[in-house]
């Protein structure tokens, strides 16, 4: 009986507004009239209003919010603001980026997915799931230190210089079907949380054109550079947006 519930809720809200002097005079008169005709209901509503006020007092927080909480609230507000801007400009920016990339002839992105996801993509999704799990596990501290030299020496991959505004959350060595890879969880201000996985390519293997596509509810960018293959995974967003992020990585020396 949603209609009845809505009517009751509306009457209660009206009564609270009436008590707080928040109703227009004509509305206040109408509400007061209704309640005057039903003194038993008015008494009920007043008791509810009393309970509500008492509960608000009884559940009051003991202290001001800690500064870290306030700072996080500010960060969220900024992120939502950025998200809204991105929604406005993304289609245009993606078209410009794709046109520019095509014109330069260096990285024309294919935005259709491969017939079957390469094993590397599956490995990246497994890595992302593992890193996500670690993120919530107290006993598995994250490693936000990206020691590129050590990783290059151990894995034989060329790590891109991450854009300065990207924040590394976790770095882990993970398994792929052929060889170990490095999986890096990052926060990109314009794209959100991403996973970048880098693995050494087999010698003599032909370089595939970069592709960006949606796969199993994620957005994937797959690209190669020199002796390394990269997979960039985004939990949401469009392939064109992710391709722009990958372009920033591909422009490293």
């Amino acid at each position, binding site marked *: 009986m*949603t209609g009845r519930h809505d009517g009751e809720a509306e009457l209660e809200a009206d009564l609270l507004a009436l008590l707080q002097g928040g109703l227009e005079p004509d509305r206040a008169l109408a509400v007061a009239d209704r309640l005057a005709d039903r003194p038993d209901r008015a008494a009920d509503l007043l008791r509810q209003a009393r309970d509500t006020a008492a509960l608000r007092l*009884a*559940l009051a927080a003991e202290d001001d919010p800690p500064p870290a909480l306030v700072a996080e609230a500010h960060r*969220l507000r900024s992120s939502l603001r950025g998200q809204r801007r991105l929604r406005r400009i993304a289609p245009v920016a993606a078209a410009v980026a794709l046109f520019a990339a095509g014109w330069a002839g260096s990285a024309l992105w294919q935005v259709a997915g491969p017939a079957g996801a390469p094993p590397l993509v599956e490995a990246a999704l497994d890595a992302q799931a593992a890193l996500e799990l670690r993120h919530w596990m107290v006993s598995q501290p994250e490693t936000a230190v990206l020691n590129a030299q050590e990783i290059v020496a151990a894995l034989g991959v060329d790590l891109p210089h991450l854009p300065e505004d990207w924040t590394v959350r976790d770095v882990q060595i993970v398994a792929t079907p052929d060889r170990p890879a490095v999986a890096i969880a990052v926060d990109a201000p314009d794209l959100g949380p991403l996973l970048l996985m880098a693995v050494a390519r087999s010698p003599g293997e032909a370089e595939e054109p970069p592709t960006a596509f949606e796969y199993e509810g994620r957005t994937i960018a797959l690209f190669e550079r020199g002796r390394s293959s990269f997979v960039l995974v985004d939990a949401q967003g469009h392939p064109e947006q992710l391709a722009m992020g990958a372009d920033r990585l591909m422009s490293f020396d």
Partner: protein
Amino acid sequence: MAHDDPDILGQLDALRRYARVLTRDAEAADDLVQATFVRARERRATFREGADVRVWLMAILRNLFIDDRRSALAARARDRAWADTRPAFVAPSGEGAARLAQLRAAFLSLGPDQREALQLVAVEGLSPAEAAQVLGIPAGTVMSRVGRARAALRAWEDGNGGAAGPRPLRIVGGRDDRKT
């Protein structure tokens, strides 16, 4: 434009209050709100333009709490908090302080379903439809839970004389062994 930004800071009190009732622990509640903001930032693409940011955040907070509740660590923290070793709420003072403390105890003793529905609708002022969105249940169910919760508190007050007397706290639902 800044004046169009969702008011996140303005939701802090309501989110902390909701988290404190869920966790019964002030520190854990603030951690939960912090995690909510982080998760919301990660999932900002799911926030629809023009939607109510408070409803969105409360739904995230509740889902995080449910996920977290599965861990033994969280369960131990909650049990500890249940023993009231760390007060999650300010100690009422002045006239009626004892009654407020008892009302809070009665509220916290409600079943979780009724308690959450009552908090969202009565204390936080969400509409039945908004509370339904947070709780993932039909609006009619929300209102019937609110009705039962109110009736339980009402019965407690009737049993308690509505004042800070020496009478024992009576929890409605047949669990009051001391009633005569």
